[in-house]
């Protein structure tokens, strides 16, 4: 043992100590962190950790009313898929529908009732309790009702259908108010009007694309977002490649190629607003060629007199021989289908144009036949009178507000401040309303103006039902059930209304404790209206089965038979030249706003998945842009990323240029959806809102906003930005990436219709033959333990 002096000893001890400490810490850092296992005190029946539970419900992201199946694990919603038993979606779902989860789990949801603290629009709110807020609101309403001033209450909602609409109707009638309005930017009011004029009923028919062989679409982006995109998509796929040797031809007529135009076999650009004229040109040719032999042939001849090929060609910009070719092939290929909508319907001549499209269907005998236009029976339930408000109705409301006739405005899940043109002055009119109550889930631009915010559940937390419109040719009803416990201190819209009614002492008129009970009560009627099924002996069984399956249907179709329009209708057919706001000399370009695929009318802007979903045609994310034809861009000396001011008679916005190869030279197009000032972190401060520069132009017949009828001029600002987009070069360079087969290639016979991975039970009352139910059931055993009741 060598001699160690004191100093060395201490040094060595120090070294050893430091080493030991380091070793100890190293070992400590390698240990597992403590994790807890927290079981339910009393687990829900058939709940199993680690096993997914599927609940069937109804999608509320747009007005199509697709059935959905929501996968939940340990009480959290994980994935939304289409409900395979639902005849509209048949197991499929669009991008927006799947993003419903991000509405549910959105970080910017309102977490509890709020009372305005600062001035309006300053976003200063104090938290409140439901008890106080509801008590005060009910008190106010009751006072107004008993004083006979109930008419001063206006209720403005989004596109509400089903029994919630009936409940609101009932509530407003008890208040004594007539001011119940549904405002939905995308509501096809002109289509209803055109159908009423031509078919005699203000309903949407079922467009049987699946069995059609020729689809001639005038402006309707039916695959993108128009009416029922998922169902149309199913029809598109099946009409193309599911029938032996038959492949439908799709022709799309619109000034700017939409998703549907891109998928179509032929895209024809007609001058904006002249699609109806083109339809009549085609009709004229069909009549001339002897394609129509009805009794009222002479009336048709007279009505179509002014639509000779040359004049149509001149007005629409579509060559005369193209018109003739379209007419001949449309008349020849049976069954065919003419569809009108979108910008065609939302122009100054919208209703006339859509009537012309309906006329086309009639002339070739496509009405009431498989593969053509099929009338839907009346919806299974829901109010019959339409409360849908067009621009003129909203202007009336604004006028009432200014005149002091509106004392209280209740807004529920609609955003008119964003979705109405600034020129309509709706936002300013709100200032004249003493009390604004918002039942919104998110702090959107309209809610920002509210005095009282009573946050509502998302559709994934609430009870509801829906009778989809357009249906699928027969009556369908679907029940929407909560799939998760409510995240926050929010309530379902229906429950809020019922609660208000109870507090107002209207218990006798509203005997239902909550929305679920109201639905159960209402669905008794549905049960008794259907065909009796021995397997379903009583209502409770029926209800359980419907909630489990998510959908009920009655396959009785509307009576078919010959259709003939009234004589006066034929005489009245004719489409005038489109009228634009803004003179052509001063404002050289027609502005073509369109609903974007993911953001829809702006409601999807707070969903990060939708913000990051590349635009289907341009690949742009997170922004706004203005589309110019390459020729237009060259004339103006603009290239991608150059910022231009878009000036219309009604206002001005700035957006970067995107050179888009498939748009008419005289037209500029802009997507709707961005430009939010509020609406959460993902929505605000991205892009601009083209609705802001739209003139308050209406379609005269319906008062609907003619959003395609504004002209603009482009003023380069000299600024430049990099458009954020996904994708590089858009030319294939002959690399045969997307290969093309010629028309002679036979269709894929027996192409499969694939089952969903989920199926929580067969639909009640109907059979959806498209779904391979057997295969679906096999997977069900693992995935789905259907639970019919969730505590709300």
């Amino acid at each position, binding site marked *: 043992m060598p001699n160690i002096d004191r100093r060395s000893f201490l040094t060595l001890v120090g070294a050893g100590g430091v080493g030991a400490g380091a070793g100890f810490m190293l070992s400590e850092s390698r240990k597992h962190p403590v994790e807890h296992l927290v079981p339910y005190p009393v687990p829900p029946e058939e709940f199993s950790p680690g096993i997914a539970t599927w609940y069937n419900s109804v999608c509320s992201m747009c007005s199509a009313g697709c059935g959905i199946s929501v996968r939940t694990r340990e009480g959290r919603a994980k994935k939304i898929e289409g409900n395979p038993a639902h005849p509209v979606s048949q197991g499929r779902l669009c991008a927006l529908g799947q993003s419903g989860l991000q509405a549910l789990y959105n970080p910017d949801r309102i977490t509890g009732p709020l009372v305005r603290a600062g001035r309006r629009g300053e976003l200063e709110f104090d938290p409140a309790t439901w008890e106080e807020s509801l008590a005060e609101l009910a008190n106010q309403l009751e006072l107004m009702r008993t004083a006979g001033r109930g008419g001063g209450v206006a209720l403005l909602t989004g596109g509400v259908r089903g029994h919630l609409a009936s409940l609101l109707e009932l509530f407003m009638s008890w208040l004594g108010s007539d001011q119940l309005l549904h405002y939905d930017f995308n509501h096809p009011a002109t289509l209803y009007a055109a159908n009423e004029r031509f078919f005699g009923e203000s309903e949407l028919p079922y467009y049987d694309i699946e069995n059609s062989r020729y689809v001639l679409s005038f402006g309707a982006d039916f695959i993108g977002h128009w009416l029922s995109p998922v169902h149309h998509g199913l029809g598109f796929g099946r009409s193309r490649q599911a029938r032996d040797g038959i492949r439908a031809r799709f022709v799309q007529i619109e000034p700017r190629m939409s998703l549907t135009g891109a998928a179509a076999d032929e895209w024809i650009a007609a001058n904006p607003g002249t699609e109806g004229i083109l339809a009549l040109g085609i009709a004229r040719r069909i009549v001339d060629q002897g394609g129509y032999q009805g009794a009222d042939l002479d009336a048709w001849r007279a009505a179509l007199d002014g639509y000779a090929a040359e004049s149509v060609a001149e007005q629409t910009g579509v060559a005369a021989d193209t018109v003739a070719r379209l007419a001949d092939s449309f008349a020849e290929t049976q069954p065919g289908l003419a569809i009108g909508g979108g910008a065609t319907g939302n122009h100054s001549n919208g209703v006339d144009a859509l009537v012309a499209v309906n006329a086309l269907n009639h002339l070739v005998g496509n009405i009431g036949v498989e593969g053509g236009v099929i009338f839907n029976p009346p919806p299974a339930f829901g109010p019959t009178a339409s409360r849908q408000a067009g621009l003129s109705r909203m202007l009336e409301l604004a006028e009432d507000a200014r005149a002091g006739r509106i004392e209280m405005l209740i807004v529920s899940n609609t955003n008119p401040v964003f979705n109405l043109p600034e020129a309509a002055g709706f936002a300013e009119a709100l200032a004249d309303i003493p009390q604004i109550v918002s039942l919104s889930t998110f702090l959107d631009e309209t809610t920002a103006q509210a005095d009282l915010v009573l946050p509502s559940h998302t559709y994934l937390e609430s009870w509801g039902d829906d009778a989809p419109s357009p249906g699928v040719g027969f009556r369908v009803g679907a029940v929407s059930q909560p799939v998760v416990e409510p995240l926050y201190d929010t309530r379902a819209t229906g429950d809020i209304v019922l609660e208000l009614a109870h507090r107002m002492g209207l218990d006798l008129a509203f005997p239902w404790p909550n929305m679920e009970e109201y639905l159960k009560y209402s669905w008794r009627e549905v049960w008794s209206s259907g065909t009796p099924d021995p397997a379903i002996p009583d209502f409770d069984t029926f209800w359980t089965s419907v909630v489990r399956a998510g959908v009920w249907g009655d396959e009785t179709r509307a009576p078919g038979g010959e259709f003939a329009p009234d004589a006066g209708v034929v005489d009245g057919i004719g489409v005038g030249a489109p009228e634009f706001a803004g003179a052509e000399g001063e404002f050289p370009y027609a502005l073509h706003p369109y609903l974007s695929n993911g953001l829809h009318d702006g409601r999807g802007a707070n969903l990060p998945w939708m913000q990051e979903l590349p635009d289907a045609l341009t690949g742009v994310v997170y922004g706004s842009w203005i589309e110019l034809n390459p020729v237009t861009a060259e004339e103006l000396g603009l290239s991608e990323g150059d910022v231009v001011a878009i000036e219309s008679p009604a206002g001005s916005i700035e957006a970067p240029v995107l050179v888009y190869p498939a748009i008419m030279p005289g037209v500029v197009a802009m997507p709707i959806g961005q430009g939010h000032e509020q609406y959460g972190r993902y929505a605000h401060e991205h892009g601009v809102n083209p609705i802001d520069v739209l003139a308050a132009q209406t379609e005269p017949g319906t008062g609907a906003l003619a959003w395609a009828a504004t002209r603009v001029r482009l003023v380069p600002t000299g600024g430049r930005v990099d458009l954020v987009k996904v*994708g*590089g*070069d*858009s*030319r*294939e*360079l*002959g*690399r045969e*990436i997307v290969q093309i087969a010629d028309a002679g290639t036979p269709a894929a016979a027996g192409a499969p219709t694939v089952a969903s991975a989920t199926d929580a039970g067969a639909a009640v009352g109907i059979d959806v033959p498209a779904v391979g139910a057997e295969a679906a059931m096999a997977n069900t055993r693992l995935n789905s333990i259907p639970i019919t009741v969730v505590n709300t």
Partner: protein
Amino acid sequence: MQRRHEDIKFADVNNDIVRSLVETGPRYYVTLAIAVLITLACFFFPWFYQLYYGIGAAGMNHPTVWGTYLASFIFWIGLSHSGTLLSCVLHITNSEWRKAMYRSAEAMTLFSLMVAAMMVMVHVGRPWFIHWALPYPNQMELWPNFRSPLMFDVMAITTYLTGSSIFIYMGSIPDFAAVRDRTTGWRHHMYVLLSLGWRGTDTEWHRLGWAYTFLAVLIIPLAVSVHSIVSWDFAMSIVPSLHQTIFAPYFVVGAIYSGTAGIVTVMFVLRKYMNFEHYITKVHFDNLGKLLLALSLIWTYINVVEVFTGWYSNDSAELESLRYKLFGFYAPLYWEMILFCAVAPLLLISKRFRTSFVPMLILSIAINIGMYTERFLIVGTSLSRQYLPDSWGVYVPSLVELSILVGSIAMFCTLFLVFVKIFPSVSIYEVKETLPAPDEGKTQWQATH
């Protein structure tokens, strides 16, 4: 004033070189401090930030997932080439002029390999798992993928690094002994350990000479293979314009080219700042200049072949890749490379140019800038333009990347500065061999054989 090479006495050699190790002026410390500071601030700080944030700190993106880190990696590997390889080649061909410069050249090899290895660490997404690329038995029962060119790379570079280290160390043993005998204090102890008990007996000299030649022969094919293998990282992919058979010779020639230019730079610096004017002379610059000229011509030829192959393929992907390289976003860089590496070196035809120190320094630096550009273009242009046009993109290096590039140069300098104070940066005994022996006018080498 300048002593002629022939006038130098053996004792002068010893004294000069030991002086370079022992006597350290403030200028050295200032330089070292600056180099260390830049290394810390420009290399380690951004790298730690990148470790924390992720590779996203660099400018890489979806189509161009490789960037300057990999370009730097190839650059440093390339720079490593002329040291040991050149030294070996010249050794077995008995080139006398090699002897004054080979030590520093070999040191360059060693340090650029180390920096290259660091670039790998910087490049990968999860460097904390880098050991998975080494074959060792483990409970996961997993081995590296021996089919991967990257795996070949790991092997080749490790081998080359080992070989080069042994080579430079072996050649330095007599010098360590010489320094050991002329120093005191901690230096003495260090050189005692480093010199491995060298006494300078005939047997020792004989064995050293034999082993040295043996290693030199062994290292030549190794060095050629190393850069061929590095080229396979690229050539074995099916990326248009990378998937070419010419890539291995292309990389080897490019490596020797940039390495030789690097030696010129280093020699200029040593000559100037370590007072080795009389050991490193115009002869060396002249010879290296000739070598550079030859290499530049070969390099130009390979570039022409590469362009021709792309054009002659008449394949959409190859053509686009070529077009993009020549006229696309990075075209200025391409033409800069051509100017620096193919056109400017033609000046070397003039002997006056070759024997002028400052112009040679400028040219050598220009060549290395050009060669760095070449490596960057190989990565950048090819990956930006691949098969699916919709996935094309543009890559621009971020500040972090540029900073790490600067920092890596500083790291190299730091290592080199430390080296010159530990290793005799000019070989004492081999320089003596080139001098007239005290007796009979023979060199010492001839005398001992």
